[in-house]
C-alpha cells in the first residue's frame, strides 16, 4: 500500500486498438457463406453484438453494428431492421428460413452464415479488434 497522499500510477492493461473491418473481412474471418448482399461486402463494420433473444438486441445493440445470432426466423431480420443492424451473421451452421431471407432482401440487409459456434465467432472477431457495440454505447452514455 502506498503511503497516504502519494500518487500511485495505475497502469492500464493495454487493449487492442479499435478497428474497422469490411464485411468481406468478416466473411473471411468467420468462413462465411454469403446468402444475401454479395454486392455489399465492401460495407464497413465497426462493432458487433451477439444474441439469440431479440429483445436483448433491441435493448443493447447500437445502430449500424453487426449482429451474430442463431435465431433463424423472420423476426431476426425484422429485429435487425428495427434496431438498424447493418448486417447479419447466422452461426452454428444455421440457415435462416425462406421468410427471413426474403425479408433481408427486401430490406437490403446482407446475410452471412458461418459454421462456427457463437463463442468462437465472437472470439475471432474480438481478436481482430472488432469492438462490442454495446460496450461502445455504454462508454458514450
Amino acid at each position, binding site marked *: 500500500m502506498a503511503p497516504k497522499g502519494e500518487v500511485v500510477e495505475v497502469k492500464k492493461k493495454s487493449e487492442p486498438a479499435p478497428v474497422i473491418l469490411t464485411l468481406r473481412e468478416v466473411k473471411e474471418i468467420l468462413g462465411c457463406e454469403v446468402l444475401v448482399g454479395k454486392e455489399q461486402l465492401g460495407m464497413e463494420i465497426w462493432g458487433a453484438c451477439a444474441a439469440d433473444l431479440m*429483445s436483448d438486441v433491441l*435493448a443493447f445493440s447500437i*445502430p449500424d453494428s453487426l449482429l451474430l445470432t442463431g435465431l433463424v426466423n423472420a423476426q431476426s431480420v425484422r*429485429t435487425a431492421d428495427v*434496431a438498424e443492424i447493418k448486417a447479419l451473421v447466422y452461426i452454428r451452421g444455421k440457415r435462416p428460413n425462406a421468410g427471413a431471407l426474403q425479408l433481408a432482401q427486401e430490406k437490403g440487409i446482407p446475410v452471412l452464415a458461418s459454421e462456427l459456434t457463437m463463442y468462437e465467432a465472437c472470439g475471432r472477431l474480438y481478436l481482430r479488434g472488432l469492438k462490442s457495440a454495446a460496450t461502445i454505447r455504454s462508454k458514450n452514455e
Partner: protein
Amino acid sequence: MSDDSLLDLEFEIIGGDFNQAGRVSTKLKSILKEIGFDAQVVRRVAISTYEAEINVVMYARRGVLRFKASPQKIVIIIEDEGQGIEDIEEAMKEGYSTATDEMREMGFGAGMGLPNIKRNSDQFEITSEVGKGTRLEVTIIAGDGSKS
C-alpha cells in the same frame, strides 16, 4: 392542439401470429423516416412499437395500435384483449418473464419487452386487468419544436 397533427393511424394486431409481428413497426419506421423525423426518434418509435406488437402477439387475442404524430411529439396507444398482467411491478423488471418455451424459440421472452418500451419513451403509462387486457400509452418527444 392537434391542428399540427401529421399522422393519425390505427392498426390491428392479431394474437399468435408471429409471422406478422413487427409489420406495423417497420411500416411506421419507414413513414417517419420519409417525413424526416430525427433518426434517434425513429429508432425509439420502432423499438417501442415492435416490442408492443410482440407482446400482443404473445399474450393477447387481438390488439389495436393507435399512432399519432405531430412535429413535437409522438403518442402510441396499444390496447389488447388478452390475459392481462397480474403484477405490473414485476413485469417492469428487466429479465422477468412469463414466456413459454415456444415464445423463446421465436426469439422472445427475455423479460426485456416492457422495460425496453419504457426506456425508449419519454412518458410511459401502463394499466392492465387480468383476464381482460392491457393498455399502454407511450409518448416520445419528437423534437425541440415550439413549446408554446
